[in-house]
């Protein structure tokens, strides 16, 4: 092996085997780590899709509200995204999960056109509470879904009696209407020194120094304002307006069909057309009052029909 003192003679075979071995091991480690990453992303995307699917049973028929909870085995961050793309906009869910004490970020978004989730932009935890409530304007538009982490507790201080009753009936562990300990997120009604302040008569919610507006008398949007950030609220409200626009077109068509069948009545066509136009031009929650007047008018006219459209 040694021809001179200190010189190490390595045969070509050995050298080649070492280099090839190193390359193979490096490639194996690289692909394994890539595979683990892809596996994690796949799992996150699957969980995201599953969460969306599990929201289907929350569609309400005659109930005023429904609640459920989702428990994920690992610590999870649910990123609630919303965009105004297409005819109805999109609800996106993107998940980051904790693996070996580190958050694994994923770039896979799961899209839904028929879901409206109101929450903080990022909700973190293992257990999540979800409750839903129908939003009528004046016809049923959608079921709004409110998602909160079990880590965050909300204390409703002196809410109006019907809200107190509804929240108590929900029996959701992280929503309290009495016996608050003190570390909860405080929600006040008509008093101005809590984390979230609701002006029930004016139809506004003040949170993190920002104000959003809701349709007075419609609690679905009020809850939406309480449980979500302004950006999420405004985006989801625009999506709801897109759905109102399409639904008003649907009711216009229904009116034509029922007239053909002999169900002649006071026409709602003109009012539906106005609702269609106003919802198309909807900019922010500040403009909800203008639409509310049209909605009320439509509701009254529809109730007076022999063949109500909804």
């Amino acid at each position, binding site marked *: 092996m040694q021809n001179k003192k200190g010189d190490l003679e390595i045969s070509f075979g050995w050298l080649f085997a070492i280099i090839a071995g190193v390359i193979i091991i490096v490639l194996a480690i690289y692909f394994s780590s890539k595979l683990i990453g892809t596996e994690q992303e796949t799992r996150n995307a699957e969980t995201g899709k599953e969460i969306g699917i599990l929201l*289907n049973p929350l569609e309400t028929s005659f109930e005023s509200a429904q609640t459920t909870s989702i428990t994920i085995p690992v610590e999870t961050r649910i990123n609630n995204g919303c965009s105004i793309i297409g005819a109805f906009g999109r609800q996106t869910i993107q998940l980051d999960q904790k693996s070996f004490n580190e958050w694994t970020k994923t770039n896979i978004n799961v899209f839904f056109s028929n879901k409206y989730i109101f929450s903080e932009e990022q909700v973190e935890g293992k257990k999540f509470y979800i409750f839903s409530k129908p939003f009528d304007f004046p016809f049923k538009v959608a079921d709004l879904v409110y998602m909160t982490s079990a880590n965050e507790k909300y204390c409703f201080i002196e809410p109006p009696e019907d809200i107190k009753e509804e929240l108590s009936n929900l029996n959701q562990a992280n929503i309290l209407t009495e016996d608050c300990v003190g570390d909860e997120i405080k929600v006040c009604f008509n008093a101005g020194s809590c984390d979230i302040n609701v002006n029930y008569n004016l139809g506004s919610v003040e949170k993190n120094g920002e104000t959003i507006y809701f349709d007075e008398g419609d609690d679905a949007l009020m809850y939406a304002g309480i449980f979500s950030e302004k950006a999420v609220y405004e985006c989801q409200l625009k999506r709801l307006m897109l759905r109102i626009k399409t639904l008003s077109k*649907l009711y216009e068509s229904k009116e034509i069909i029922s007239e053909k069948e002999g169900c002649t009545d006071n026409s709602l066509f003109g009012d539906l057309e106005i609702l269609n136009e106003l919802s198309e031009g909807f900019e922010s929650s500040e403009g909800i009052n203008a639409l509310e007047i049209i909605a009320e008018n439509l509701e009254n006219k529809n109730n007076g029909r022999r063949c109500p459209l909804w």
Partner: protein
Amino acid sequence: MVIKNKKAQMKIQQMMFMLLAVTFLFILVGVFFLAIKLSTLKQSATSLEEKNAMLLVSKLASSPEFSCENAFGAKASCVDFDKVIALKEMKEYSDFWGVAEIEIRKIFPASNEICTSQNYPNCGIVKVFESKKNALPPSTNFISLCRKEVSERIIYDKCELALLMVSSEEKG
């Protein structure tokens, strides 16, 4: 010298063949593994779609595009026939529920005639939405299909038993 050179060349060739064989082996194992992974992924995507269809069909009758609301009094699992016929023509909804097909079939009185705006309401099958995707066998739910019927001067609610069918898309 020539013999030694030839021996070395042989060794190099031997090594190259060995290396090629090892590389091919790794590639084959990798491709096999990826094929299995891809097929499991497709399976889980399809099963998620099926689950979506199954859960959707039980609540679709309550969604605003289908539900009777208060037009026919308080009725559970009530689908507005007029609305469904109007919905059929609206292309905006083609991908709204994320399923491959939605169909309504009258059970009683049964009819195999597909509903169009011309033959409505004397028909039995409403293809609310159908895509060109590979549709899986449908999930079904019983509903009351209601509309207003005008007879002389009386307007009354006419509700018929029907089946709401939702098919999910087969992935891959």
